[in-house]
């Protein structure tokens, strides 16, 4: 059976919220692997990095694999030295900016969902450089994922729950929304535990802002697609942390994966937790990412 992973926390949660969150995920959730670390803004890391070792130990004691995630964008020298020290210390690293590969000294790595692996040629190059697990980019359709998985000698992971990362910038939109600059941002992103809603002028929500990152408004929800993806040899499904009952969400995904209940029942239970935020799954069916499709040919 495919495994469930817990993606890195994308939002600027407080140290205390992170500690509580991981304690519960370690003790109560059916995830097999957790990604720790900061992927969006390196300015956030000092707020919680002292806890990471203890959090990692607790997860490992509970039998979970721990992977350290690195930022989507590496630019400053300070970021380079910070990431270099993470790469040296951690057993397994998730790369989200290709530049990070140069800091690994040949160590094995996980290629994160923010790395463009659209085809088997790139897949082979990354495996040659040491990738042991490759995340499909969020834009890929089910047939494209199946093609990659069929040509892959390594594990393939798919982003299966949560707001979908759509873009990364050097500009901080959270700061901009308060007429601040990134250098003096006052960490206003911390006020929105699941990101800041962006609506169309007609009032309909469309996107979510999380500092320099832009995400979908809806939650990607692939319960209907788990069986097909599992049959295509997708080995891991990623659940992205939100300020929701993530233990329950992981339990629902696990139950649908092992057949305890069907996707429809899982969706009904998930709806109770995630409403009023809508579900989306368009990319997987070759449609606009923001769409939600329930009638599709298998």
């Amino acid at each position, binding site marked *: 059976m495919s495994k469930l992973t817990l993606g890195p926390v994308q939002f600027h949660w407080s140290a205390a919220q992170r500690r509580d969150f991981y304690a519960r995920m370690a003790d109560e959730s059916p995830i097999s692997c957790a990604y720790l670390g900061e992927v969006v803004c390196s300015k956030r890391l000092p707020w919680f990095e002292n806890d990471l070792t203890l959090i990692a130990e607790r997860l490992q004691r509970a039998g979970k694999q721990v992977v350290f995630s690195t930022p*989507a*964008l*590496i*630019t*400053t020298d300070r970021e*380079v030295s910070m990431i270099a020290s993470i790469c040296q210390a951690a057993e397994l690293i998730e790369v989200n*900016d*290709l*530049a*990070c*590969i*140069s*800091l690994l000294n040949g160590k094995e790595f996980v290629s994160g969902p*923010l790395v*463009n692996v*659209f*085809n*088997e*040629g*790139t*897949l*082979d*190059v*990354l495996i040659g*450089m040491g990738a042991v697990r490759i995340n499909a980019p*969020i*834009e890929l359709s089910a*047939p*494209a*994922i199946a*093609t*990659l998985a069929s040509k892959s000698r390594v594990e393939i992971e798919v982003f299966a729950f949560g707001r*979908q990362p*759509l*873009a*990364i*910038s*050097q*500009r*901080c939109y959270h*700061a901009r929304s308060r007429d601040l*600059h*990134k250098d003096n941002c006052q960490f206003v992103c911390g006020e929105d535990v699941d990101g*800041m*809603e*962006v*609506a*169309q*002028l*007609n*009032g309909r929500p*469309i*996107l979510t*802002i999380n500092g320099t990152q*832009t995400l*979908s408004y809806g939650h990607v929800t692939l319960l209907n697609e788990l069986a097909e993806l599992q049959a295509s040899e997708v080995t891991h499904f990623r659940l992205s942390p939100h300020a929701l009952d993530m233990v329950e969400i992981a339990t629902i995904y696990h139950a649908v994966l092992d057949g305890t209940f069907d996707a429809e029942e899982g969706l009904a239970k998930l709806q109770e937790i995630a409403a009023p935020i809508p579900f989306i799954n368009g*990319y997987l069916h070759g449609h*606009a*990412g*923001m769409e939600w499709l329930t009638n599709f040919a298998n």
Partner: protein
Amino acid sequence: MTRYLELVCPAGNPVALRVAVDAGADSVYCGFRDCTNARNYPGLNFDRQELRAGIAYAHARGCRVFVAVNTFPRAGKIGSWHRAIDDAAACGADAVIVADLGLLDYTMRQHPQLRRHLSVQAAAASALSIRFYMEKFDVSRVVLPRVLAVHEVSNLIGQTGVEAEVFGFGSLGTMVEGRCFLSSYMTGRSPSSDGVCAPAECVSYREEAGGLVSCLSDVMINCFGSDEPAAYPTPCKGRFLVRGRPRYIFEEPIGLNVIPLLSALKASGVTALKIEGRQRGRNYVATVVSAFRGILDALADGRAPTGTPDVLRTVAEGQRETFGAYAKGWR
């Protein structure tokens, strides 16, 4: 006269190529008529014969031709992208502009003599990243993302010794290029895979009580009052409600223009200046290329340029300009 900066100009089709060459381009860049390049719009681009003829025209006038094969090949359909590289080489292109790792690898193995320029779609924005592409794929030049300040451009060139091409004029994205999925989130088609951002067939405008509404698919991107010029509904230039207040949360509809920064860019070690706009018409190409030719020639002669020619303002996106990330405080 020594060259101040190499002027790299857009050639969206064979006519634009000739216009750009005649107006004084040092190099032009173009793509094939399919999803192998990041400007896959109807009526644009080249078939193989047109490329061969275009290269002959440019080479006869001392102008180089770069072929952009800068989208990310689709799984299971990689052959079209390999053919694009093979054909660019066979047609005599001076370089290919590539972003995808697998395609860089293919190009290096199959055509080691063909210069590889790293596309802005690869978004190599750090010394570490640039060295990665130089060492692994022997790229000769890097097109730097439009997210760097001038002093950062200078540091990157100093640290890596890379031959750098930077954007000087035209449309300006605010997201890291090659990794922005806003367009496909709304329309199903993206720059990465399809070579299109905000495709025209998904764009609509309608008059409402509040003004002129612009939409991308069903998403309302903006609403313009009678006193505002309407802009194309690119997601990152849209006006949205944030904390209940309408604002351009990402960027305003505005074009990039670095004319006042040219001497600073030259001093920072930049080799080439790129004009964006393969999707624009021959008038844009003629206007922008001749204006920049004049300015670069003046600078090469030791004369200071006299500011931005008015004619450029008429073709800038939103008829307004910015230094973008080159200036401090943009972030």
